[in-house]
């Protein structure tokens, strides 16, 4: 039994995008040249944010945003196909593209805008299919997808543990946490550890009980977590 979670230090994030690229490589997210801000797919996205000031008082930060792995899942409750399920053994919210009919109710219900719709069939430049991760199936046109804490890695870790006669998956880390050059993203098990003191969660007032914890020493960054609050925070 696990309850996987993530802790992200916003003050350490340099917005390099290594997590976005590592995630896309790991999870076979296609490089669709026609994809854009609205129709593209990226399971994790780093948003540049600022405090809305100008001149010397202006401050900026980067906010990595992915599926918040809610315990109280707004997406699962609206899915007519049971294509979204919270795995009670891991705490991971899974998405099953085989069941998804593409109604996108879940995208509307998600308060974090962390779900993406496949507007096109996945396509790779000639020959690049050979570099795809064989542990993760590409998703077809017409279904929704999102971060699942690199479920392929979890399966691989489980298999490895089983081969060693163990029950719990050891050495399981999602690609974003593994690739983060500054160590801003930390992956941990809530049953074995706790988030750092002063951590906060996004839109906590909604009661979604997310498992992605953020932290920052800057008050205006914490303020973003409860936006909109009437102040002019800028989420680019």
């Amino acid at each position: 039994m696990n309850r996987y979670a993530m802790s992200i230090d916003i003050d350490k994030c340099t917005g390099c995008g290594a997590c976005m690229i590592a995630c896309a490589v790991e999870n076979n997210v296609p490089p669709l040249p026609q994809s854009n801000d609205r129709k593209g797919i990226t399971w994790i996205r780093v948003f540049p944010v600022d405090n809305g000031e100008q001149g010397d008082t202006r401050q900026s930060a980067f906010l990595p945003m992915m599926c918040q792995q809610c315990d109280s899942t707004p997406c699962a409750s609206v899915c007519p196909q049971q294509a979204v399920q919270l795995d009670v053994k891991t705490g991971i919210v899974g998405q099953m593209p085989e069941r998804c009919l593409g109604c996108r109710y879940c995208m509307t219900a998600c308060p974090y805008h962390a779900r993406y719709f496949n507007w096109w069939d996945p396509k790779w430049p000639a020959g690049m299919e050979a570099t795809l991760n064989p542990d993760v199936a590409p998703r077809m046109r017409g279904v929704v997808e999102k971060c699942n804490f690199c479920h392929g890695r979890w399966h691989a870790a489980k298999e490895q543990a089983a081969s060693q006669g163990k029950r719990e998956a050891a050495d399981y880390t999602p690609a974003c946490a593994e690739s983060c050059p500054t160590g801003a993203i930390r992956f941990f098990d809530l049953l074995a550890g706790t988030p750092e003191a002063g951590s906060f969660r996004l839109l906590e007032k909604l009661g979604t009980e997310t498992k992605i914890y953020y932290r920052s020493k800057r008050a205006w960054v914490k303020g973003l977590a409860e936006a909109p609050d009437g102040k002019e925070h800028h989420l680019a």
Partner: protein
Amino acid sequence: MSSTRRDLLKMTAGVAAGTLFTPAPWRLITDSAILSENWPGIFFSSHGAPTEKFTNCALCTAGCAVKARCVNDRPISLAGVVKSPICALGLAGLHMPFHTARIAHGDAENAAAAVRAAQGKVAVLDLRPGRTASWTYRRAMAALPGGIYLAPQRILNAVNLAAVKTLVSFGAPVLDGWGTPSKVLAAREHFSLIQVEKDQSHTGLLADRWIPVQPGNEPVVAQQIARDLPADGSSLFLSSAELPSVLKMNVTLGNLGHTVIARNETPVPAAWSKQAAAVHAIQNVADRSIGALLIDEASADVAVPWDVIAPKLTNSAVVITFASTQAGYGRYAQFVLPAAVYPEVTTDIPTAIDSVVATFRLATPLMAAPSGVVDAAEFVASLAKLDTKDALQERAASIHATGRGSLLSYSDQKSRPIKDVKADQFWTALNAGACWSDSESPLKAPRWEATIATPAICEAVRPKPPLFTKLYEESGLKGIAS
């Protein structure tokens, strides 16, 4: 006239037969296939047991250590090693061979003939000097009558980040691909960063102070900032465009020998140094003196503006470039010869700008290069009838013979003195991604006056991996090491 049941049946059969000659049923088949699509999936040719390989990233001179997960002799993901992360570009490096603009064919035979026809006026422009291939070019140019070896000269070749307390950057992407990520991030806690540039970059966003500047006003701003800094050699002035007036502040503030240091070169066999042509900056070459210019741009770190190159060529000059796409000098070249790209290449990586000691590491191929690619060093060596097949191994042997330094192996994270490693073990370890670092020696001040002349360099045109789509660009992520 009365209709019978037979007529009705005949009409139905006729309509059915006639419909087959219209597009309707055929379209219906396609449409119903789409509507009831059962995902056919993507053809995976990489099923098999995953293996781990270690190599070094050759996309920039940082040369970060890379752990590759491979299936069926093909990389399926790249990652950094412990305490040495890689950047976004490095993570997507395994996709570089599949760039849609990649060129597959080139006329190497006619290119060689054209170079031979320009005997006496041949030059090589090496856009990543310091490699073993660079020494091959120098030896070949020395062997060819009138051969000239050209390399872009940079004012700053080595810096000591550990000694920096204040870093003043004029547009240099300090936190976004300028140096070795692990070294820059480790040093970041110890220096305050002032970023001066026209538009706020990622580095500007994360700097302790960001100063907007109108292009052309940099020298004035640099002087203003320098006035408030102590002249104790603890600051460092960087400039993306290598502005001499800005970089000269390093002399004014006594940074030479402290934060700005002389580059330590990796040893080469003694015979090579004796036979090598001198290094020239292209702006110092006589106008209309080059009849055949070979440009190695496949691994370019910087480029030379074409405006600087063009006056040096004769009217009938032939330009041959070794590149993976036509986006760079290909527009001006008569011959574009396809080059292997990382992670197909076998090459060494020159010492990084932020390394205080000389290093030697290899980028070994993680996958086979397609047929038709031309090895630039072999091509140039063949013109001078040099045998350079084992050049990398020869250089490794000469490094081992010095008995200096240590060898860090990434597979076991162990560092061993070179004295404890046999020559063949050294070569094997290098091919498995190990890194040789020279022994530390007292830091020397660079020969500043020799390099302060206005450099003629610009940013190299480099293809981005296919994953760097519009979406990533819209996310405001630069992700490209400079």
